[in-house]
């Protein structure tokens, strides 16, 4: 019986395993050094905030794996020997595979800051990071102040986490507005204000120079690059993005760049070795996507696709229309299609932006200014239907159609106020004056 070994028990690896089991009788082993069972990484924050316990972040009960004959092995893979198809573990153990799937995800970026390895400095990615945070920041007596470095999705989540335990937070963001490499200005600025409304000390255009230590090797303070200001703190969260977690592969035959290099079939340069999820890097980016897509949904899609290939139905990774979502403190965000920030948008991309007066809801609709084709939408504080936008993008609808039919896409709970009329009249007005 063919033995499929998957390194990594995140969404990509587990999706692959589940679909292989649905399609075949192959022997499946999932290897992880992080946890015994699959959990939802995106839910780690809710454990610290006390909304859930760790067990609630596990989508499958523990009996699920044995029942579906998916073997779980806890261990850290040190090296991969592709000629003999053998994994060598840190504890000396070995494991033979017939087909290998690398799905090891990401690790937090560290940019060589002085003091970045001190006690009390941590990312917020692995289960172990959460344990460390619980140790260093159980309450605002032990952790009197925390500094977060890096203004992305994980940074703002970490800020929300610390805020839930009344720990004062200083949030250092390199850009001149929160996440404005991705978000258009109107949205980014609304989130700036929302962060400040939560009494978080948001510092824009601010870089970290160094982290200072006390006599015991613990974090004592950080120094700001621009001003030289020293901020006393007990915890420093490094959330300046992530990169593929593939150090153990670097010495093997498998080709790597920033991630594990794969073709559209998610195959590496070595036969029977595949890579999916955050750690995979496409030779050439697909459409407007990045070569490395470190997103929950793309990891799942790659897993769904690869399972087909492994079970004999060789298939390209061919994602549909882009979508994503996040939550910034109390404001939900969804995106369908492509809406680029001012920094990265192309000449033909025009935006219509509407913001509600309460400063917690807004949308940005991107369209082609030459052809009026609808390109995508960002929506904040208003839920929209995925299938409706997916269909409109496939049908290549123009922006007028989308704006006139926005009600069809609304996904807010019943009895919520609707803003489509207001949005449409703002849109009509803007186009007339433009």
């Amino acid at each position, binding site marked *: 019986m063919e033995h499929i070994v998957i390194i990594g028990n995140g969404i990509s690896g587990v999706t692959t395993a589940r679909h292989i089991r649905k399609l075949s009788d192959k022997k499946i082993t999932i290897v992880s050094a992080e946890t015994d069972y699959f959990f939802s990484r995106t839910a780690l924050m809710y454990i610290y905030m*006390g*909304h859930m316990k760790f067990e609630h972040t596990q989508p499958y009960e523990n009996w699920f794996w044995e029942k579906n004959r998916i073997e779980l092995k806890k261990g850290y893979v040190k090296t991969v020997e592709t000629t003999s198809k053998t994994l060598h573990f840190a504890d000396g153990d070995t494991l033979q595979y017939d087909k290998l799937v690398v799905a090891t995800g990401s690790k937090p970026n560290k940019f060589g800051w002085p003091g970045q390895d001190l006690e009390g400095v941590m990312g917020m990615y692995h289960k172990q990071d959460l344990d460390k945070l619980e140790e260093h920041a159980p*309450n605002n007596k032990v952790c009197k102040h925390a500094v977060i470095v890096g203004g992305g999705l994980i940074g703002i989540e970490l800020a929300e986490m610390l805020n839930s335990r009344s720990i004062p937070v200083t949030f250092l963001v390199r850009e001149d507005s929160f996440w404005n490499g991705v978000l258009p200005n109107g949205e980014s600025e609304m989130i700036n204000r929302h962060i400040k409304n939560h009494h978080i000390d948001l510092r824009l255009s601010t870089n970290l120079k160094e982290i200072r230590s006390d006599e015991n090797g613990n974090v004592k303070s950080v120094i700001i690059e621009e001003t030289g200001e020293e901020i006393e703190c007990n915890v420093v969260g490094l959330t300046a993005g992530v990169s593929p977690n593939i150090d153990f592969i670097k010495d093997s035959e498998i080709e790597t760049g920033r991630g594990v290099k794969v073709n559209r079939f998610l195959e590496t340069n070595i036969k029977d070795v595949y890579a999916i999820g955050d750690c995979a890097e496409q030779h050439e980016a697909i459409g407007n996507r990045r070569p490395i897509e470190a997103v929950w949904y793309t990891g799942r899609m790659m897993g769904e696709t690869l399972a087909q290939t492994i079970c004999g139905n060789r298939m390209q990774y*061919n994602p*549909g229309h882009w979508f994503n979502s996040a939550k910034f403190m109390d404001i939900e965000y*969804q995106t369908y299609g492509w809406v680029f920030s001012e920094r990265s948008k192309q000449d033909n991309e025009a935006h219509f932006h509407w913001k509600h007066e309460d400063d917690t809801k807004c949308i940005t609709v991107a369209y082609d200014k030459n052809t009026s084709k609808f390109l995508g939408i960002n929506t904040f504080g208003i839920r929209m239907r995925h299938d409706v936008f997916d269909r409109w993008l496939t049908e290549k609808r123009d922006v007028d159609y989308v704006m006139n039919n926005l009600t069809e896409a609304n996904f807010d709970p019943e009895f919520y106020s609707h803003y489509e009329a207001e949005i449409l009249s703002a849109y009509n007005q803007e186009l007339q004056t433009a």
Partner: protein
Amino acid sequence: MSNKLNHSMSLAKPDALDITTKQKVALAIGIAGLFILTLALLNTDFPNKGLFLSLSLGLITVGTILYSREAYLTKLEGIKNDGQWFKSDSSRGVWGWVLGIILTGFYIVLYFFEELLGLGQGINGTNTGLISLFDPLSQLLSGRPASQWFVYGTLYTVAILAFGYKFMLKYRHNKYQQLRTGSVMFFQLGFAFLIPEFMYRMNSDLPYYDLKNMWPLNYYNFEQYRVDSFINNGNIGMALLILGVASIFIISPFLTYKYGKRWYCSWVCGCGGLAETAGDSFRHLSSKKMSAWKLERWLIHTVLVFSVVMTTAVIYTYLGYDPDKYWLTREVFLISIGAFLTIVFAVIMIFKRNELGKDAKFGAIGYFVVIGLLIAMHFTGTTEQVFFIKAGALKSAYGFYIGSIFSGVIGTGFYPILGNRAWCRFGCPMAGILGFQQRMFSKFRITTNGGQCISCGNCSNSCEMGIDVRHYAQKGENIVRSSCVGCGICSAVCPRGVLKLENDSMKGRINPTEVLLGNDLDLMELVNQK
């Protein structure tokens, strides 16, 4: 490493999640109100009972209101679940158990030892103790002294109103939650509490009737004494009797078809009302295990069959034999029940058998055979008693085990241990019927938003009915479950906007998918086809 399971019993926990000074004051005010009740329970004879009762209920209400305002209005609108698994009272900690034991004790006394509350213990059978404290209010409303049920009803109503206010503040950004809570507060205060008292004042021969409380939740509605007094009270009585029957066969099926069982369970019902308001802090404690779901399916349907059998037997005993005196004889009645059950059974098996799980099929067939056999035995046998057992014995067994122990002592007393909907989930026969219909014939579902789920588990965690909502959401599948009471909290807490409660057409309501929206269209078709 376990996360913060170091429960502290100290009111001044060394913890950032500690309550504020204002909240401590509010807590003290509320406890002062409870203290008056405790004194009354210990037979303190207050001089001006009306004043002290108002003071007590007022302090409890004001304390809850102040506490809630400090908890929620000091923060921005949004989801307010911080620390719910850390706090001792809401995570089966010491305080949770203490609260559970106090509530359980209260229910045991209420149901079985009403004399301890002071019912009729005074001179000439007047009330003493806690019940006497409530006499002035009862006299005011209906002109009679209080009973233990009046005391219970009053406290129940105060709890729903005060904690309903708290819930509305907690979800002040969510219109659905606000309206729903306003609805349960209205139905409790008006229908369950005030109207029955006023009805008594207008016509004291009518039985106590909470108009929205329908059979089989109101399992005693068709007992002889009630039916007699309905019939003997002219048009109003007949109207009430007709309402009771219409509720079962017309009103509730229609509303459940259109809106799902939520129209009752989380908008109208009194048990649901208490669970959604005072019980809200315990909703995450319900078990989401597969094994709990299996137990639930057997238990709730067994209770339902029990209630049908019991009610049939009770009605049977007071019907006559002679069709010349009244058309509804014992025989006609039993044949009608048998025919009705057969029709329901046949319709399900013909049109909906593909939607039934294997055990549901066995269960349905098994129960149907049992009921059919028992009725057949009646017609062939000689026994005077339907189902071999005396109807009276069935009735008191049901009243004791289901009506008192299950719904009261366990259902509410165990809030801090089993979650706030243990009765609704495992026991309520009404929920069983409505749920059956919701699963088979209703426009209601929780729609899953394409591929947006991140499997975080907030939805499952906050489901008071123990539905593993995530199991469906992460597959892109709509949630169509008989137990769902439509409280809408899963949708509220979802951080990615994945869930929406809605009424739409029956077609395509149940939509299992293998590959989710967002992936290659060909792959989706290939995999989802089979």
